[in-house]
Protein backbone atom coordinates (compact mmCIF):
# COMPACT_ATOMS: atom_id res chain seq x y z
CA UNK A 1 0.00 0.00 0.00
CA UNK A 2 1.46 3.35 -0.95
CA UNK A 3 0.92 6.14 1.45
CA UNK A 4 1.29 9.71 0.19
CA UNK A 5 2.80 10.92 3.43
CA UNK A 6 5.42 8.18 3.52
CA UNK A 7 6.23 8.70 -0.17
CA UNK A 8 6.75 12.42 0.42
CA UNK A 9 8.81 11.80 3.52
CA UNK A 10 11.08 9.41 1.65
CA UNK A 11 11.42 11.40 -1.54
CA UNK A 12 11.87 14.97 -0.33
CA UNK A 13 14.67 16.71 1.49
CA UNK A 14 12.30 18.74 3.67
CA UNK A 15 8.52 18.96 3.81
CA UNK A 16 6.56 22.15 4.31
CA UNK A 17 3.60 21.58 6.59
CA UNK A 18 0.76 24.06 7.10
CA UNK A 19 0.17 27.06 9.34
CA UNK A 20 -2.49 28.06 11.83
CA UNK A 21 -6.03 26.76 11.84
CA UNK A 22 -7.63 28.99 14.49
CA UNK A 23 -6.04 32.23 13.32
CA UNK A 24 -7.15 31.61 9.74
CA UNK A 25 -10.68 30.65 10.73
CA UNK A 26 -11.04 33.80 12.85
CA UNK A 27 -10.25 35.79 9.74
CA UNK A 28 -13.12 33.95 8.06
CA UNK A 29 -15.53 34.93 10.80
CA UNK A 30 -15.24 32.23 13.47
CA UNK A 31 -16.33 33.72 16.79
CA UNK A 32 -14.32 33.45 19.96
CA UNK A 33 -15.57 30.48 21.94
CA UNK A 34 -17.13 28.60 19.03
CA UNK A 35 -15.90 25.13 18.09
CA UNK A 36 -13.93 25.21 14.81
CA UNK A 37 -14.82 21.54 14.23
CA UNK A 38 -18.51 22.35 13.77
CA UNK A 39 -17.56 24.21 10.61
CA UNK A 40 -16.57 20.93 8.97
CA UNK A 41 -20.30 20.40 8.60
CA UNK A 42 -21.75 23.91 8.86
CA UNK A 43 -19.24 25.85 6.73
CA UNK A 44 -17.51 23.27 4.52
CA UNK A 45 -16.55 25.86 1.88
CA UNK A 46 -14.59 27.84 4.44
CA UNK A 47 -12.78 24.75 5.66
CA UNK A 48 -11.90 23.85 2.07
CA UNK A 49 -10.63 27.39 1.62
CA UNK A 50 -8.48 26.97 4.75
CA UNK A 51 -6.93 23.77 3.37
CA UNK A 52 -6.62 25.25 -0.13
CA UNK A 53 -4.77 28.22 1.32
CA UNK A 54 -2.01 25.91 2.55
CA UNK A 55 -1.89 23.99 -0.73
CA UNK A 56 -1.70 27.18 -2.81
CA UNK A 57 1.05 28.55 -0.56
CA UNK A 58 3.18 25.49 -1.27
CA UNK A 59 2.58 23.12 1.64
CA UNK A 60 3.36 19.43 1.12
CA UNK A 61 0.92 18.44 3.79
CA UNK A 62 -1.82 20.04 5.85
CA UNK A 63 -3.61 19.18 9.08
CA UNK A 64 -7.35 18.68 9.26
CA UNK A 65 -9.64 20.95 11.26
CA UNK A 66 -10.14 18.33 13.95
CA UNK A 67 -7.80 19.46 16.74
CA UNK A 68 -10.61 19.57 19.31
CA UNK A 69 -12.31 16.49 17.88
CA UNK A 70 -12.20 14.18 20.88
CA UNK A 71 -15.38 13.62 22.84
CA UNK A 72 -13.69 15.34 25.80
CA UNK A 73 -13.41 18.57 23.86
CA UNK A 74 -16.61 18.39 21.84
CA UNK A 75 -18.74 17.88 24.95
CA UNK A 76 -18.19 21.55 25.68
CA UNK A 77 -20.32 22.31 22.66
CA UNK A 78 -22.68 19.47 23.47
CA UNK A 79 -21.34 17.71 20.37
CA UNK A 80 -19.72 14.73 22.10
CA UNK A 81 -21.95 12.40 20.12
CA UNK A 82 -20.78 13.89 16.83
CA UNK A 83 -17.15 12.77 17.06
CA UNK A 84 -17.38 10.46 14.05
CA UNK A 85 -19.40 12.87 11.93
CA UNK A 86 -17.25 15.95 12.55
CA UNK A 87 -13.90 14.19 12.20
CA UNK A 88 -14.96 12.32 9.08
CA UNK A 89 -16.24 15.51 7.51
CA UNK A 90 -13.01 17.37 8.29
CA UNK A 91 -10.98 14.52 6.83
CA UNK A 92 -13.10 14.11 3.70
CA UNK A 93 -12.89 17.81 2.88
CA UNK A 94 -9.14 17.54 3.21
CA UNK A 95 -8.98 14.44 1.05
CA UNK A 96 -10.91 16.24 -1.71
CA UNK A 97 -8.65 19.29 -1.62
CA UNK A 98 -5.51 17.14 -1.67
CA UNK A 99 -6.74 14.90 -4.48
CA UNK A 100 -7.62 17.92 -6.64
CA UNK A 101 -4.10 19.34 -6.35
CA UNK A 102 -1.66 18.88 -9.21
CA UNK A 103 1.12 17.68 -6.95
CA UNK A 104 1.20 15.10 -4.17
CA UNK A 105 -0.26 16.50 -0.96
CA UNK A 106 -0.62 14.52 2.27
CA UNK A 107 -3.59 14.93 4.59
CA UNK A 108 -2.74 14.66 8.29
CA UNK A 109 -5.58 14.05 10.75
CA UNK A 110 -5.08 16.48 13.61
CA UNK A 111 -5.61 15.14 17.11
CA UNK A 112 -5.20 17.61 19.97
CA UNK A 113 -5.17 17.10 23.74
CA UNK A 114 -8.28 16.14 25.68
CA UNK A 115 -7.82 19.16 27.92
CA UNK A 116 -7.95 16.94 31.00
CA UNK A 117 -5.22 15.82 33.36
CA UNK A 118 -4.51 12.13 33.39
CA UNK A 119 -4.04 9.85 36.35
CA UNK A 120 -2.29 9.68 38.75
CA UNK A 121 -2.22 13.46 39.27
CA UNK A 122 -5.51 14.06 37.45
CA UNK A 123 -8.81 12.31 36.93
CA UNK A 124 -8.71 11.00 33.37
CA UNK A 125 -7.97 7.27 33.24
CA UNK A 126 -5.69 5.75 30.64
CA UNK A 127 -8.47 3.49 29.39
CA UNK A 128 -10.90 6.35 28.82
CA UNK A 129 -8.26 8.48 27.10
CA UNK A 130 -7.42 5.59 24.75
CA UNK A 131 -11.10 5.11 24.02
CA UNK A 132 -11.62 8.76 23.12
CA UNK A 133 -8.50 9.00 20.95
CA UNK A 134 -9.45 5.73 19.27
CA UNK A 135 -12.92 6.98 18.40
CA UNK A 136 -11.43 10.06 16.77
CA UNK A 137 -8.68 8.09 15.02
CA UNK A 138 -11.13 5.68 13.38
CA UNK A 139 -13.24 8.55 12.07
CA UNK A 140 -10.21 10.34 10.62
CA UNK A 141 -9.10 7.09 9.01
CA UNK A 142 -12.54 6.56 7.55
CA UNK A 143 -12.51 10.11 6.22
CA UNK A 144 -9.35 9.31 4.29
CA UNK A 145 -6.37 10.93 6.04
CA UNK A 146 -2.90 9.62 5.17
CA UNK A 147 -1.49 9.89 8.66
CA UNK A 148 -2.68 10.75 12.17
CA UNK A 149 -1.08 13.82 13.69
CA UNK A 150 -1.04 14.21 17.46
CA UNK A 151 -0.15 17.77 18.51
CA UNK A 152 0.22 20.22 21.41
CA UNK A 153 0.56 17.47 24.00
CA UNK A 154 2.25 18.21 27.32
CA UNK A 155 1.90 15.00 29.36
CA UNK A 156 3.73 11.78 28.46
CA UNK A 157 0.73 9.80 29.76
CA UNK A 158 -1.54 11.45 27.21
CA UNK A 159 1.01 10.87 24.44
CA UNK A 160 1.07 7.19 25.36
CA UNK A 161 -2.71 6.91 25.38
CA UNK A 162 -2.95 8.43 21.90
CA UNK A 163 -0.18 6.18 20.55
CA UNK A 164 -2.04 3.14 21.84
CA UNK A 165 -5.25 4.35 20.21
CA UNK A 166 -3.51 4.90 16.87
CA UNK A 167 -2.20 1.36 16.98
CA UNK A 168 -5.76 0.13 17.56
CA UNK A 169 -6.81 2.11 14.49
CA UNK A 170 -3.86 0.60 12.61
CA UNK A 171 -2.74 3.99 11.30
CA UNK A 172 0.72 5.52 10.84
CA UNK A 173 1.18 8.57 13.00
CA UNK A 174 3.29 11.58 13.93
CA UNK A 175 3.32 13.35 17.26
CA UNK A 176 4.42 16.71 18.62
CA UNK A 177 4.47 18.24 22.08
CA UNK A 178 4.33 21.88 23.09
CA UNK A 179 7.42 23.08 24.94
CA UNK A 180 6.21 26.30 26.51
CA UNK A 181 7.44 26.29 30.13
CA UNK A 182 11.11 27.14 30.63
CA UNK A 183 12.03 24.96 27.66
CA UNK A 184 9.92 22.03 28.84
CA UNK A 185 6.30 21.08 28.37
CA UNK A 186 3.86 22.25 31.03
CA UNK A 187 4.21 18.80 32.60
CA UNK A 188 8.00 19.06 32.70
CA UNK A 189 8.99 16.97 29.65
CA UNK A 190 12.30 18.02 28.03
CA UNK A 191 13.27 17.60 24.38
CA UNK A 192 15.62 14.79 25.46
CA UNK A 193 12.80 13.08 27.37
CA UNK A 194 10.58 13.16 24.31
CA UNK A 195 13.30 11.80 21.98
CA UNK A 196 13.53 8.80 24.31
CA UNK A 197 9.77 8.50 24.81
CA UNK A 198 8.95 8.11 21.11
CA UNK A 199 11.29 5.14 20.75
CA UNK A 200 9.14 3.24 23.27
CA UNK A 201 6.20 2.88 20.93
CA UNK A 202 5.31 0.13 18.51
CA UNK A 203 4.73 1.40 15.97
CA UNK A 204 6.91 4.41 16.70
CA UNK A 205 5.79 7.69 15.12
CA UNK A 206 6.99 8.30 11.55
CA UNK A 207 8.17 11.68 12.74
CA UNK A 208 8.05 13.58 16.02
CA UNK A 209 8.82 17.03 17.29
CA UNK A 210 7.46 20.27 18.67
CA UNK A 211 4.62 22.63 17.87
CA UNK A 212 3.20 25.87 19.23
CA UNK A 213 5.12 26.89 22.37
CA UNK A 214 6.63 30.33 22.72
CA UNK A 215 7.98 31.74 19.47
CA UNK A 216 10.41 30.73 16.76
CA UNK A 217 13.66 30.89 18.73
CA UNK A 218 12.48 28.57 21.52
CA UNK A 219 11.23 25.90 19.16
CA UNK A 220 14.57 25.80 17.32
CA UNK A 221 16.38 25.30 20.60
CA UNK A 222 14.01 22.38 21.21
CA UNK A 223 14.76 20.96 17.73
CA UNK A 224 18.48 21.19 18.49
CA UNK A 225 17.71 19.30 21.69
CA UNK A 226 16.07 16.46 19.73
CA UNK A 227 18.98 16.35 17.28
CA UNK A 228 21.48 16.23 20.15
CA UNK A 229 19.97 12.89 21.17
CA UNK A 230 21.27 11.39 17.93
CA UNK A 231 17.78 10.67 16.72
CA UNK A 232 17.42 9.30 13.20
CA UNK A 233 13.68 9.72 13.22
CA UNK A 234 12.48 12.74 11.19
CA UNK A 235 11.94 15.84 13.34
CA UNK A 236 8.92 18.14 13.10
CA UNK A 237 9.03 21.87 13.86
CA UNK A 238 5.76 23.81 13.79
CA UNK A 239 6.35 27.09 15.57
CA UNK A 240 4.13 30.11 16.15
CA UNK A 241 4.50 33.21 13.99
CA UNK A 242 5.92 35.30 16.80
CA UNK A 243 4.15 36.41 19.96
CA UNK A 244 0.42 37.18 20.27
CA UNK A 245 -0.57 40.84 20.48
CA UNK A 246 -4.04 42.20 21.01
CA UNK A 247 -4.97 44.70 18.29
CA UNK A 248 -8.46 46.14 17.80
CA UNK A 249 -10.28 43.22 19.35
CA UNK A 250 -8.25 40.57 17.55
CA UNK A 251 -5.20 38.52 18.33
CA UNK A 252 -2.36 39.36 16.01
CA UNK A 253 0.94 37.49 15.94
CA UNK A 254 3.90 39.77 15.47
CA UNK A 255 6.04 37.42 13.33
CA UNK A 256 6.43 38.70 9.75
CA UNK A 257 6.57 36.44 6.67
CA UNK A 258 10.27 37.36 6.37
CA UNK A 259 10.93 36.16 9.91
CA UNK A 260 9.09 32.90 9.29
CA UNK A 261 11.15 32.40 6.12
CA UNK A 262 14.31 32.75 8.21
CA UNK A 263 12.82 30.40 10.79
CA UNK A 264 12.06 27.74 8.14
CA UNK A 265 15.59 27.75 6.73
CA UNK A 266 17.10 27.67 10.22
CA UNK A 267 14.74 24.88 11.32
CA UNK A 268 16.05 22.73 8.48
CA UNK A 269 19.63 23.58 9.43
CA UNK A 270 18.81 22.56 13.03
CA UNK A 271 17.78 19.13 11.76
CA UNK A 272 14.03 19.41 11.21
CA UNK A 273 12.63 17.54 8.24
CA UNK A 274 9.00 18.64 8.46
CA UNK A 275 8.66 22.37 8.93
CA UNK A 276 5.52 24.40 9.36
CA UNK A 277 3.87 27.07 11.44
CA UNK A 278 1.35 27.09 14.22
CA UNK A 279 -0.69 29.95 15.75
CA UNK A 280 -0.54 33.13 13.67
CA UNK A 281 0.92 31.47 10.57
CA UNK A 282 -1.02 32.63 7.51
CA UNK A 283 -0.63 31.67 3.83
CA UNK A 284 1.72 34.63 3.26
CA UNK A 285 4.02 33.25 5.95
CA UNK A 286 3.89 29.80 4.34
CA UNK A 287 4.82 31.29 0.97
CA UNK A 288 7.89 32.91 2.48
CA UNK A 289 8.79 29.61 4.16
CA UNK A 290 8.35 27.69 0.90
CA UNK A 291 10.60 30.16 -0.89
CA UNK A 292 13.26 29.98 1.80
CA UNK A 293 13.31 26.18 1.74
CA UNK A 294 13.43 26.09 -2.07
CA UNK A 295 16.00 28.80 -2.70
CA UNK A 296 18.40 28.61 0.21
CA UNK A 297 20.99 25.93 0.49
CA UNK A 298 21.22 23.83 3.59
CA UNK A 299 23.74 25.12 6.13
CA UNK A 300 25.32 24.01 9.38
CA UNK A 301 23.17 23.91 12.49
CA UNK A 302 23.09 27.42 13.94
CA UNK A 303 24.43 28.19 17.39
CA UNK A 304 22.03 29.50 20.04
CA UNK A 305 23.57 32.95 19.59
CA UNK A 306 22.91 32.86 15.86
CA UNK A 307 19.28 31.88 16.50
CA UNK A 308 18.86 34.81 18.87
CA UNK A 309 20.48 37.28 16.47
CA UNK A 310 18.14 36.29 13.62
CA UNK A 311 14.89 35.35 15.35
CA UNK A 312 15.04 37.12 18.72
CA UNK A 313 15.59 36.17 22.36
CA UNK A 314 14.57 32.94 24.10
CA UNK A 315 11.79 33.01 26.68
CA UNK A 316 13.95 31.27 29.29
CA UNK A 317 17.68 30.91 29.95
CA UNK A 318 17.80 27.15 29.61
CA UNK A 319 15.86 24.45 27.80
CA UNK A 320 15.75 22.30 30.92
CA UNK A 321 18.10 19.60 29.60
CA UNK A 322 21.70 18.79 30.42
CA UNK A 323 23.70 19.71 33.49
CA UNK A 324 21.38 22.49 34.51
CA UNK A 325 18.45 20.10 34.48
CA UNK A 326 16.55 22.42 36.76
CA UNK A 327 16.23 25.55 34.69
CA UNK A 328 16.14 27.94 37.59
CA UNK A 329 18.48 26.13 39.97
CA UNK A 330 18.35 23.66 42.82
CA UNK A 331 15.15 22.32 44.33
CA UNK A 332 14.70 24.33 47.50
CA UNK A 333 12.98 21.60 49.47
CA UNK A 334 11.94 18.00 49.57
CA UNK A 335 14.01 15.01 50.48
CA UNK A 336 12.39 12.42 48.30
CA UNK A 337 11.00 10.98 51.52
CA UNK A 338 9.05 7.86 50.78
CA UNK A 339 5.94 6.68 52.45
CA UNK A 340 6.64 4.39 55.36
Amino acid sequence: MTNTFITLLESKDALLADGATGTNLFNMGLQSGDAPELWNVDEPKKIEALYQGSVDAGSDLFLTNTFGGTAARLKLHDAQRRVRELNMAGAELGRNVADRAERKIAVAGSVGPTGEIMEPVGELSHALAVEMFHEQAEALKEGGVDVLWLETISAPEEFRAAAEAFKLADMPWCGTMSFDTAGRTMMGVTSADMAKLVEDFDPAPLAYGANCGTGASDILRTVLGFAAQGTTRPIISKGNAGIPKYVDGHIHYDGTPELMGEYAAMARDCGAKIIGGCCGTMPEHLRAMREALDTRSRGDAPTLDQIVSVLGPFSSDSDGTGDDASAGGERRRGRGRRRA
Partner: protein
Amino acid sequence: MSDDADDIILAELNDEELVQQMFDDLYDGLKEEIEEGVNILLERGWAPYKILTEALVGGMTIVGADFRDGILFVPEVLLAANAMKGGMAILKPLLAETGAPRMGSMVIGTVKGDIHDIGKNLVSMMMEGAGFEVVDIGINNPVENYLEALEEHKPDILGMSALLTTTMPYMKVVIDTMVEQGKRDDYIVLVGGAPLNEEFGKAIGADGYCRDAAVAVEMAKDFVSRKHNQMSA
Protein backbone atom coordinates in the same frame (compact mmCIF):
# COMPACT_ATOMS: atom_id res chain seq x y z
CA MET B 1 6.62 0.59 59.36
CA SER B 2 10.36 1.13 59.29
CA ASP B 3 11.55 2.25 55.88
CA ASP B 4 15.32 2.69 56.12
CA ALA B 5 16.79 6.16 56.56
CA ASP B 6 13.63 7.88 55.34
CA ASP B 7 11.68 6.84 58.37
CA ILE B 8 10.91 9.93 60.41
CA ILE B 9 8.58 9.91 63.39
CA LEU B 10 6.78 13.27 63.14
CA ALA B 11 5.55 13.19 66.74
CA GLU B 12 9.15 13.02 68.01
CA LEU B 13 10.16 16.28 66.32
CA ASN B 14 9.99 19.57 68.18
CA ASP B 15 7.74 22.29 66.75
CA GLU B 16 10.41 23.93 64.68
CA GLU B 17 11.71 20.67 63.23
CA LEU B 18 8.18 19.53 62.52
CA VAL B 19 7.32 22.66 60.56
CA GLN B 20 10.52 22.26 58.54
CA GLN B 21 9.64 18.62 57.90
CA MET B 22 6.15 19.67 56.80
CA PHE B 23 7.73 22.06 54.29
CA ASP B 24 9.59 19.08 52.86
CA ASP B 25 6.54 16.84 52.91
CA LEU B 26 4.40 19.45 51.17
CA TYR B 27 7.12 19.83 48.58
CA ASP B 28 7.10 16.08 48.05
CA GLY B 29 3.31 15.97 47.93
CA LEU B 30 2.86 13.63 50.91
CA LYS B 31 -0.76 14.09 51.92
CA GLU B 32 -0.95 11.66 54.84
CA GLU B 33 2.17 13.11 56.42
CA ILE B 34 0.76 16.64 56.14
CA GLU B 35 -2.50 15.55 57.76
CA GLU B 36 -0.53 13.91 60.55
CA GLY B 37 1.59 17.02 61.01
CA VAL B 38 -1.46 19.26 61.23
CA ASN B 39 -3.04 17.01 63.83
CA ILE B 40 0.14 16.94 65.92
CA LEU B 41 0.35 20.74 65.92
CA LEU B 42 -3.32 20.99 66.91
CA GLU B 43 -2.69 18.60 69.80
CA ARG B 44 0.22 20.76 70.88
CA GLY B 45 -2.15 23.68 71.14
CA TRP B 46 -1.29 25.59 67.97
CA ALA B 47 -4.09 27.87 66.77
CA PRO B 48 -5.55 26.69 63.46
CA TYR B 49 -4.65 30.02 61.86
CA LYS B 50 -1.03 29.70 62.96
CA ILE B 51 -0.82 26.21 61.45
CA LEU B 52 -2.33 27.48 58.21
CA THR B 53 0.01 30.42 57.82
CA GLU B 54 3.24 29.11 59.28
CA ALA B 55 3.22 25.47 58.22
CA LEU B 56 0.99 25.15 55.17
CA VAL B 57 1.15 28.56 53.50
CA GLY B 58 4.83 28.73 54.33
CA GLY B 59 5.43 25.41 52.61
CA MET B 60 3.31 26.23 49.59
CA THR B 61 5.18 29.51 49.16
CA ILE B 62 8.34 27.50 48.53
CA VAL B 63 6.51 25.24 46.08
CA GLY B 64 5.21 28.35 44.32
CA ALA B 65 8.66 29.89 44.09
CA ASP B 66 10.15 26.76 42.55
CA PHE B 67 7.23 26.50 40.13
CA ARG B 68 7.75 30.12 39.11
CA ASP B 69 11.45 29.48 38.56
CA GLY B 70 10.97 26.43 36.36
CA ILE B 71 12.27 23.96 38.94
CA LEU B 72 8.95 22.27 39.66
CA PHE B 73 6.32 21.55 37.01
CA VAL B 74 2.58 21.02 37.01
CA PRO B 75 2.51 17.39 38.23
CA GLU B 76 4.59 18.17 41.34
CA VAL B 77 2.54 21.27 42.10
CA LEU B 78 -0.69 19.30 41.80
CA LEU B 79 0.61 16.72 44.25
CA ALA B 80 1.75 19.42 46.67
CA ALA B 81 -1.60 21.17 46.41
CA ASN B 82 -3.36 17.89 47.05
CA ALA B 83 -1.31 17.39 50.22
CA MET B 84 -2.14 20.95 51.24
CA LYS B 85 -5.82 20.23 50.69
CA GLY B 86 -5.60 17.30 53.10
CA GLY B 87 -4.33 19.64 55.81
CA MET B 88 -6.88 22.32 54.93
CA ALA B 89 -9.76 19.87 55.24
CA ILE B 90 -8.84 19.47 58.92
CA LEU B 91 -8.32 23.18 59.52
CA LYS B 92 -11.26 24.66 57.63
CA PRO B 93 -14.03 23.99 60.18
CA LEU B 94 -11.72 25.03 63.00
CA LEU B 95 -10.80 28.27 61.24
CA ALA B 96 -14.47 29.14 60.86
CA GLU B 97 -15.12 28.42 64.56
CA THR B 98 -12.20 30.51 65.75
CA GLY B 99 -13.05 33.47 63.50
CA ALA B 100 -9.58 33.61 61.99
CA PRO B 101 -8.75 36.61 59.80
CA ARG B 102 -9.45 36.29 56.07
CA MET B 103 -6.84 36.87 53.42
CA GLY B 104 -9.44 37.72 50.82
CA SER B 105 -11.66 35.97 48.34
CA MET B 106 -11.76 35.21 44.64
CA VAL B 107 -14.22 34.02 42.04
CA ILE B 108 -12.40 32.19 39.27
CA GLY B 109 -13.43 30.52 36.03
CA THR B 110 -12.33 29.66 32.50
CA VAL B 111 -14.02 31.78 29.82
CA LYS B 112 -16.68 30.74 27.35
CA GLY B 113 -15.50 28.32 24.69
CA ASP B 114 -12.59 27.11 26.76
CA ILE B 115 -12.70 23.84 28.67
CA HIS B 116 -9.15 23.99 29.91
CA ASP B 117 -9.01 24.00 33.64
CA ILE B 118 -5.46 22.98 34.47
CA GLY B 119 -4.21 26.54 34.87
CA LYS B 120 -7.33 27.65 36.65
CA ASN B 121 -7.17 24.71 39.05
CA LEU B 122 -3.55 25.45 39.81
CA VAL B 123 -4.37 29.06 40.59
CA SER B 124 -7.33 27.96 42.77
CA MET B 125 -5.17 25.59 44.73
CA MET B 126 -2.30 28.00 45.16
CA MET B 127 -4.69 30.74 46.22
CA GLU B 128 -6.27 28.43 48.78
CA GLY B 129 -2.77 27.48 49.75
CA ALA B 130 -2.13 31.15 50.45
CA GLY B 131 -5.24 31.32 52.62
CA PHE B 132 -7.70 32.87 50.17
CA GLU B 133 -11.28 31.73 49.87
CA VAL B 134 -11.84 30.60 46.31
CA VAL B 135 -15.13 30.09 44.49
CA ASP B 136 -14.41 28.07 41.36
CA ILE B 137 -17.18 28.43 38.77
CA GLY B 138 -15.57 25.95 36.39
CA ILE B 139 -15.06 26.03 32.64
CA ASN B 140 -16.85 27.53 29.64
CA ASN B 141 -18.37 30.52 31.44
CA PRO B 142 -20.40 33.08 29.54
CA VAL B 143 -20.39 36.61 30.95
CA GLU B 144 -23.68 35.99 32.79
CA ASN B 145 -22.04 33.30 34.94
CA TYR B 146 -19.28 35.64 36.04
CA LEU B 147 -21.72 38.42 36.91
CA GLU B 148 -23.98 36.09 38.88
CA ALA B 149 -21.04 34.71 40.85
CA LEU B 150 -19.77 38.22 41.62
CA GLU B 151 -23.22 39.23 42.79
CA GLU B 152 -23.62 36.16 44.97
CA HIS B 153 -20.16 35.93 46.55
CA LYS B 154 -18.96 39.55 46.51
CA PRO B 155 -15.30 38.55 46.20
CA ASP B 156 -12.32 40.88 46.27
CA ILE B 157 -10.99 39.40 43.05
CA LEU B 158 -12.32 38.11 39.76
CA GLY B 159 -9.95 35.68 38.03
CA MET B 160 -10.37 34.68 34.41
CA SER B 161 -8.43 32.00 32.60
CA ALA B 162 -8.09 31.00 28.93
CA LEU B 163 -5.72 28.57 27.28
CA LEU B 164 -6.63 29.17 23.67
CA THR B 165 -5.97 32.07 21.35
CA THR B 166 -9.51 31.43 20.20
CA THR B 167 -11.00 32.15 23.60
CA MET B 168 -8.78 34.78 25.21
CA PRO B 169 -10.59 37.72 23.51
CA TYR B 170 -13.70 36.75 25.49
CA MET B 171 -12.09 38.16 28.63
CA LYS B 172 -12.61 41.59 27.16
CA VAL B 173 -16.30 40.86 26.66
CA VAL B 174 -16.60 40.16 30.39
CA ILE B 175 -14.66 43.26 31.42
CA ASP B 176 -16.56 45.48 28.98
CA THR B 177 -19.85 44.22 30.37
CA MET B 178 -18.68 44.96 33.91
CA VAL B 179 -17.79 48.50 32.81
CA GLU B 180 -21.19 48.96 31.16
CA GLN B 181 -22.96 47.91 34.34
CA GLY B 182 -20.75 50.15 36.47
CA LYS B 183 -19.31 47.20 38.39
CA ARG B 184 -15.77 47.12 37.05
CA ASP B 185 -14.21 49.11 39.88
CA ASP B 186 -15.81 46.97 42.58
CA TYR B 187 -13.40 44.13 41.84
CA ILE B 188 -9.76 43.40 41.20
CA VAL B 189 -9.63 41.64 37.83
CA LEU B 190 -6.74 39.25 37.25
CA VAL B 191 -6.29 37.27 34.03
CA GLY B 192 -4.03 34.42 33.06
CA GLY B 193 -3.44 31.61 30.58
CA ALA B 194 -0.69 30.34 28.32
CA PRO B 195 -1.22 32.56 25.27
CA LEU B 196 -1.68 35.78 27.25
CA ASN B 197 0.89 38.40 28.12
CA GLU B 198 1.07 41.61 30.09
CA GLU B 199 0.30 43.73 27.07
CA PHE B 200 -2.87 41.75 26.43
CA GLY B 201 -3.95 42.16 30.05
CA LYS B 202 -3.53 45.92 29.79
CA ALA B 203 -5.25 46.11 26.40
CA ILE B 204 -8.43 44.46 27.67
CA GLY B 205 -8.53 46.48 30.89
CA ALA B 206 -7.56 43.89 33.51
CA ASP B 207 -5.76 44.95 36.69
CA GLY B 208 -3.10 42.35 36.25
CA TYR B 209 -1.81 39.56 34.05
CA CYS B 210 -0.54 36.54 35.98
CA ARG B 211 2.15 34.59 34.16
CA ASP B 212 1.60 31.59 36.42
CA ALA B 213 -0.14 30.50 39.58
CA ALA B 214 2.68 31.71 41.83
CA VAL B 215 2.53 35.18 40.30
CA ALA B 216 -1.25 35.13 40.69
CA VAL B 217 -0.91 34.63 44.43
CA GLU B 218 1.69 37.37 44.81
CA MET B 219 -0.40 39.76 42.79
CA ALA B 220 -3.59 38.88 44.64
CA LYS B 221 -1.93 39.54 48.01
CA ASP B 222 -0.55 42.82 46.77
CA PHE B 223 -3.82 44.10 45.29
CA VAL B 224 -5.91 42.99 48.27
CA SER B 225 -3.61 44.70 50.77
CA ARG B 226 -3.71 47.88 48.70
CA LYS B 227 -7.50 47.68 48.54
CA HIS B 228 -7.74 47.25 52.30
CA ASN B 229 -5.35 50.17 52.84
CA GLN B 230 -7.50 52.32 50.61
CA MET B 231 -10.61 51.37 52.51
CA SER B 232 -9.09 52.17 55.87
CA ALA B 233 -7.54 55.41 54.61
